[in-house]
Structure formats: C-alpha cells, structure tokens
C-alpha cells in the first residue's frame, strides 16, 4: 500500500470557528488548505485535528451569502463604547475629585478597548456564510466568514478547480440549467432577447410600495421633539418636559432605525429615503455631540466648582450649549416638515412600486 508523495499544503485566507452542539466553548478553529488535488478543511479542537478533503474534481459549487453579523458587531461595540464612556463621565462628574487622572485614564482605556474592537471589525469588512457543495454534501466553510477572505480564497481555488474540471461559459450554464431545470428558463427563453441577455445582470427587483405611516409618525415626532426642545430652552427646570424630551429622543432613535430597515424592503421616493437616512445620522450625531459636550462641560464645571453638580441652568449658561440646542432643534423641525411634505407627496402620487437595479453591493476582488 504505497503512500502518496509528501507535499506542502498552502493555507487559504480566513479563519473561523465551528461550534459543536451549539456550545461556543468547545468551538473548533477552522482553516482551509490547498493540496495538490484537493482542499483540506481543518478543524482544530484543543489538541485534536479533524480533516475533510474536497477533491477538485468533485466540487460542484461554492456559495457566498452576505450576512449582517458584521453590522451587529459594529452596533454592539459602538454601543458598549458609548455606555462605557457615559458611565465614566457620570462617575467622574459626580466624584469629589474630578480632576484625578485615574478615572479618566481608566475610562479612556475601557472605551478605547471597544473602539479598537470596532475599528478591527470595520477593517475586516462585511461578514458572509460560505458553503461548498459536492454531489453528496453541502459543507459550511466557517473560515471564510468575511466577504474579503472568501473572495481571495475563491480567486485562488477557482483556477485550480477549472484546471481539473474545465471552465463554464455562459452558454454552458444556460444549457446546463435548461437540462436540469427548464422551468426556470421558461420565462427568459420565451423572450427573443433571451440569448442576447445571457450572462447579463439579473432583472430589476420590484419593491412593494410602503404605506408611509411609519415615516409620517417619525417626522411628526421630529416636529414634536423640536417643539419640546424649544420649550425646554424657555422653561429649563420643567421635570415633565425633561422626561418627555428623553422619551421622545429614545423613541425617535428607535423609530428612525426601524424606518431605515423598513425602507430597504418597501418602495419609497428617493428624496424621502435620503431624508430618513439623513435624519437618522443627524439624530445620532446630535446625541454624540451633546454627550461629548456634556462630558467636557461637566468636567470643567466640577473642576471650577468642587463639590457641585451642574444644573440645566448652569449648562445653558455655558458657551455654545444654547447654540447647539437651537441648531439641533431647528434642523429637527426642518427635517420633520420636509419629511411630512415628502411623505404626503408620495402618498398623493399613489404609492407606486419602485424597481431597484440589482447593483452589486460588495465588489469582489478581480479574478486572476
């Protein structure tokens, strides 16, 4: 029984974890390696290694599906950074020795840790789920968990597989589909331009029209929020208005986020879409600006007045605070009025469905 000649495996980009029985603690570290005639999937669990070989002649397809995990992690890390900085800001502001460098350094380290994770996640790019299919199995490839690494790996594997199996032209694909699933081609084959459009991008996607109710509520609340903001400038000590403003702020953030998700799946006029995106960015930017201002102002005030916590009246007396509030509320009111007008126009035009061209969302690396 002769053994095969020794050869050197070449590692493919990417790494990932494969959980066993849904328990992350005993997750296997996965990697992909290229051999002379096969791809080796290697799972390392502590001191054991498990191998699966996929021979080039058997590989039928590789599927890459973009996932939202990266965005979820970004939100998570961003939120943790905000929460950490706010906790430390409150702690420093309410302490008797706010000028002490210890808490500031600790806060900077904790926030910096989450910001670093956020930066790393952003740099690694969007996530994806990759699957390799043969005649008898469909195997997930956790190591190709990022679109960038999946594209790089496919760019390496594809020529090797094609060297064994040969290439596929658009005509071959068309014929292959015609033999295996003629139903799918019935619609396109009926049209005279079927041959001409072979290999062309897929047809535009028809989005169902949005009712516009969510956007109407969002923009109405923006106007109400701006009104409450102006009222608070005139009556800074009102407890009810303070609670109402905080509630409105949270509601607006949540609503704008939901509206952003909803408008991806339903048709809306382009200006309305853009205004919603702008409102979302504006709301969060305002919160961040105010948060940073609060942090600095609180620190400065407590340094100047040891043992005192600044009230809203003190804040309003600080340089630039009133201007920030007035600008933000004015912009909120303007966005609300414009949004209501655009939503009304959209509804009055009969809420037409919109065809979205299927532009590539994530350009892959050029093929070799």
């Amino acid at each position, binding site marked *: *029984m*002769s*053994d*095969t000649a020794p050869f050197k*495996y070449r*590692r493919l980009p990417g790494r990932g974890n494969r959980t066993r029985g849904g328990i992350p603690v005993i997750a296997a570290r996965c990697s992909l*390696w290229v051999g002379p*005639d096969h791809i080796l999937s*290697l799972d*390392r669990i*502590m*001191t*054991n*290694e*498990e*191998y699966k070989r996929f*021979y080039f*002649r058997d*590989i*039928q*397809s*590789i*599927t*890459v*599906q*973009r996932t939202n995990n990266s965005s979820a992690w970004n939100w998570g890390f961003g939120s943790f950074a905000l929460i950490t900085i706010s906790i430390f800001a409150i702690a420093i502001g309410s302490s008797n020795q706010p000028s002490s460098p210890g808490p500031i350094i600790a806060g900077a380290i904790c926030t910096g840790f989450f910001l670093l994770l956020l930066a790393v996640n952003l740099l690694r790019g969007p996530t994806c789920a990759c*699957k390799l*299919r*043969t005649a008898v199995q469909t195997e997930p490839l956790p190591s190709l968990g990022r*679109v960038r690494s999946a594209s790089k790996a496919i760019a390496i594997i*594809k020529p090797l*597989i094609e060297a064994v*199996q*040969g*290439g*596929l032209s658009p005509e*071959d*694909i*068309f*014929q*292959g*589909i015609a*033999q295996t*699933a003629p139903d*799918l*081609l019935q619609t*396109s084959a009926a049209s005279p331009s079927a041959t001409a459009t*072979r290999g*062309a*991008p*897929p047809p535009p*996607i028809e989005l169902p029209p949005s009712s516009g109710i969510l956007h109407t509520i969002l923009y109405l609340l923006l106007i109400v929020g701006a009104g409450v903001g102006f009222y608070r400038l005139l009556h800074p000590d009102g407890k009810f208005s303070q609670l109402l403003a905080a509630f409105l702020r949270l509601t607006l953030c949540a609503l704008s986020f939901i509206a952003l998700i909803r408008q991806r*799946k339903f048709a809306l006029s382009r200006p309305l879409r853009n205004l919603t995106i702008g409102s979302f960015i504006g709301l969060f930017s305002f919160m961040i600006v105010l948060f940073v201002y609060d942090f600095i102002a609180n620190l400065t005030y407590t340094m100047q007045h040891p043992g005192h916590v600044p009230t809203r009246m003190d804040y309003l007396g600080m340089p630039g605070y009133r201007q920030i509030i007035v600008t933000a509320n004015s912009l909120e009111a303007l966005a609300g009025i414009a949004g209501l007008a655009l939503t009304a126009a959209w509804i009055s035009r009969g809420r037409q469905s919109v065809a979205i061209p*299927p532009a*590539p*969302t*994530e*350009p*892959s690396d050029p*093929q070799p």
Partner: protein
Amino acid sequence: MLSCPRCSKPLPEAFYNSADLLPCPSCHTPVRLEVFPAFFNPPPAGTAGETILVEGESSCFYHPSKRAVAACESCGRFMCALCDLDLNGQHLCPACLETGKRKGKLKQLENRRVLYDSVALTLALWPLLIFYLTILTAPITIYVVIRRWNAPTSVVGRTRWRMVLAAVIALAEIVGWCFVIFFLTHVNQLVRASHR
C-alpha cells in the same frame, strides 16, 4: 438548481459565476455563486461485476462468480468491477482500504489526528496556574515528549518546537522541584542543628 441559501428560492442563471454579490430576487440577500462543470455533470454510475461466461477466466476473490478486472495494488487479489475501489488512481480491494484506513497507512482517508506536541505543551504550561500540579505533570510531559517524539504532527505540517519547548519547561519544573526539596531538607537540617 442552486437556490438562495437564505430563502431557498432558485436563483436565475445570471447569478452563476457572476463574480459579484448580487441581491436575491426574493429576499434581497446578497449572494455569489461559483459553479463548476461537475454541477451539471451527474456523478458516474457505479458498475456491477460481470458474470463469468467462459470457464478458466480469472474471477474476483470476493465474488467467485464475477469476472476479475483488476488486481489490488496492496495485496494483489483479483477484483471484479464492484470491488475495485479507485482511490486517486490507486486500485484497492475493500479489505485493504479498510485496513489502510484503520492503520493510518492511507493518508487520504485519515480524518483525525491527535497533536502530541500540543498535548505536551498543554501539560507543561497549564498546570503552572496551580503550581503544585507540576510535580505530577512535569514527569508526564517528559514521558509524552520521549514516547511521542516521532508521532506525526499535523497533516499540514509543523515543526517540533512545541515538543522542545514543552521538554524545556518540564525540565525546568523538575529542576525547580528538586531545588525546593533540597532547600527544604537542607534548611530543616540546619534548623535542627541550631536547636541542638
């Protein structure tokens, strides 16, 4: 047909080998498909052994009524088309394939390995957290290093630095324990001498 991994709806032909992530027409999830000729070519059907018609023809070792088509490259037994197992151009009989897999002689079929270099390093390093354990684990590490020095490492190949490092750490632990034991007994003797 290939379908969307998320909504399981079949994807149109424009998605095949598109080189870009394209939104699924049904669920809008960006998908990329790389398809190869094996997808459209059905796998070759298995062949059954042919029955011997002429007397004196060589027959299969496992199926005496079937005509032999090849000899096993490991044991030399004649095999019919059914028993002829092709393993990357190597013709093997079922028994040799099973034996080769069990004994690890067929690297292509090896699907699991214990990395003894990692075992040794784990044994040398982790007990340092509870230092007293090293009095037991250090000799075990040395035993693993000596016993498994020639054991195969990862299939993808890696050097033996883990083994060397584990041996060095384990030896250091043993030397440390010897020193501690010597020091304790020596001090004890000195204390007793001073009491006298």
